[in-house]
């Protein structure tokens, strides 16, 4: 039995990630961490602070500055039966490891049956004045590469449950954790072990009028918009994809069949992003039930800018969702 005090403890999104790593390392000795500065320093965001003292400097492995080498090593170790978790420090730096991820990790099982149970933690997203190389949303690069699973949690509960599921999965999983959410959102988590199954979307707010399909930090933007629209009598449903691959098409379609209207929202650049695929799927599968155009809200097709007014302009905001919802409501 757990005490009420334990059951009530509140953790941040960042702490939820830390708990998942800690619990999985304690549960399964095959799990080990590798990345830049994750040892005594605890990682750029201090997620692994104290881990090396607890698990030693081979299970929490500080590596040279060498993303492709790190991911390649994780692939080799994974194929030999380990469960490596790579920290990419900033998701932006994943470009250096693109080849190992897409050409080796993603294809080995398809080509010759070798499973690659590896997780790459990719701290992504803007709103933190990181500029063009510390704020990117690179999920679109991998969305197009068969053989990878992609997840992007929006809450502490999902962050912990999806990371556990990713570590236990027999495939390479890129885990997009949003930096903006690290210390900004909190939740009470269950004390018992749980996973959030990969490939399941979650309706974060049920509503009857318009579906907003989104993921990552934008889930909170959508929720904020939904809250403000209640005064106008508009009831938004917020669907959090959580997994980009595999995509939970059923939940998306059910939502849109109910509301008949859809807004697709993401922080990544608009062209060729995850939202384009969702919109195309809705056009193919839900055309008969749509009462208006599928609207996309995304960042413009520019690199992520640094200066505050530029970044403010760049990132989608609740106001954008409100405006799109009003436009759709008129149909």
């Amino acid at each position, binding site marked *: 039995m757990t005490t009420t005090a334990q059951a009530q403890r509140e953790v941040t999104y960042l702490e939820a990630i830390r708990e998942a790593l800690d619990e999985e390392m304690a549960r399964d000795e095959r799990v*080990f961490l590798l990345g830049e500065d994750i040892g005594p320093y605890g990682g750029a965001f201090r997620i692994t602070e104290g881990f090396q003292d607890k698990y030693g400097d*081979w*299970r929490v*492995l500080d*590596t*040279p500055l*060498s993303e*492709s*080498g*790190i*991911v*390649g*090593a*994780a*692939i*080799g*170790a*994974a*194929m*030999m*039966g*380990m469960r*490596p978790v790579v920290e990419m420090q900033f998701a932006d730096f994943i470009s250096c490891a693109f*080849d*190992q991820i897409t*050409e*080796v990790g993603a*294809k*080995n*099982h*398809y*080509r*010759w*049956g*070798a*499973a*690659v*149970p590896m997780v790459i933690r990719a701290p992504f997203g803007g709103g933190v004045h990181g500029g063009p190389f510390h704020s990117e949303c690179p999920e679109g690069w991998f969305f197009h590469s*068969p*053989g990878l*699973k992609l997840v992007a949690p929006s809450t502490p509960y999902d962050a912990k449950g999806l990371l556990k599921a990713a570590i236990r999965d*027999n*495939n390479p999983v890129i885990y997009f954790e949003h930096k903006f959410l690290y210390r900004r959102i909190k939740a009470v988590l269950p004390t018992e072990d749980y996973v959030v199954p990969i490939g399941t979307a979650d309706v974060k707010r049920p509503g009857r009028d318009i579906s907003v399909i989104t993921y990552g930090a934008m889930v909170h933007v959508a929720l904020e918009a939904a809250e403000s629209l209640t005064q106008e009598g508009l009831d938004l449903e917020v669907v959090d994809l959580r997994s980009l691959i595999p995509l939970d098409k059923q939940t998306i379609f059910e939502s849109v069949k109910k509301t008949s209207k859809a807004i697709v929202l993401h922080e990544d650049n608009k062209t060729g992003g995850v939202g384009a695929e969702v919109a195309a799927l809705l056009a193919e599968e839900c055309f008969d039930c749509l009462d208006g155009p599928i609207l996309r809200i995304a960042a413009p097709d520019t690199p992520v800018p640094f200066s505050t007014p530029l970044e403010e302009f760049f990132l989608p905001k609740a106001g954008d969702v409100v405006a799109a919802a009003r436009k759709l409501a008129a149909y």
Partner: protein
Amino acid sequence: MGVEIEEVARTIKRPDLVQMYYYLRLTRTLEDRITALYRQGRIVGGVYTSNGMEAVAVGYASALEPDDIIAPYHRDMGAFLVRGITPGEVVAQYLGKRTGPTKGKDGNVHIGDLKRGIIGFVSHLADNYPVATGAALSFRLRGEPRVVVTNTGDGGTSRGDFHEAMNFASVRKLPVVFFCNNNQYAYSTPLNLQMAIPNVVDRAKAYAIPGEIVDGNDVAAVHLAAKRAVQRARSGEGPTFIECKTMRMHGHSEHDSAKYVPRELLEEWKKRDPILKAEQWLTRLGYGDETLFREVEERVKKEVEAGVEFAEQSPLPEGPEVLDGVFAD
């Protein structure tokens, strides 16, 4: 670079050298047969052979224990065969048959099979260097006395992944042996346009990895160097880099006539053919003579023909099988 007869006599027993000779012959005969099939238009994709370089793969693969792992590159047919991939499977792979190691998902030398300790090769050269390093890391983490051997060509050593892997393996003293098949040309690019240093082994110095240059056409020399490096790795002393000097005697692939290679250079290297060289060792050591050579030749011919027959009679995969296996369960 060369080895003395006393050392070979002391360290390689007759059955081991005879077996290496058998694998050299098997590799040559199999690849020649595949080349012939290609010229008859019976192979759909490219053909990449190790003609003239068979001693490298046979030499290192025969220096390993069954539990060890190889992460080869595309001129390591001999290593696949030593590891137990059959000629029939190889031809089936080339023909895109379901009985090939990738069941038609991939072609030619893209063979991987963890049950036989083979990490599959990807065309992006040197990508297997970091992967091999990671496999070695897993052995180090679990305290297993296993070793990984990987290989790439001289061209592959210009890639970042080559350097990233060498650095990481050296920092952590991982049980991996890095081979480089310096066969003078990366596709059509000669060594002097690939790097400004005369020997690839110089690249290992930057990582404090001991390096060695070996006559890549001498299976005994390669084998002995591999044995030393494997022993070093197994005892926790870390990686070794072995540069095998050799010559690519065919084009990059069979559609490449390699006109960019001076004919005199090929004539020169022909005199140093690995099969000829192995026969010289066998003769000098009193391990075998012409009778043995003809026996082995006949045996491998029969095995290769049986392999071709097996492959040709094997079924092609069905179209919808393309959808299988993207993810592991």
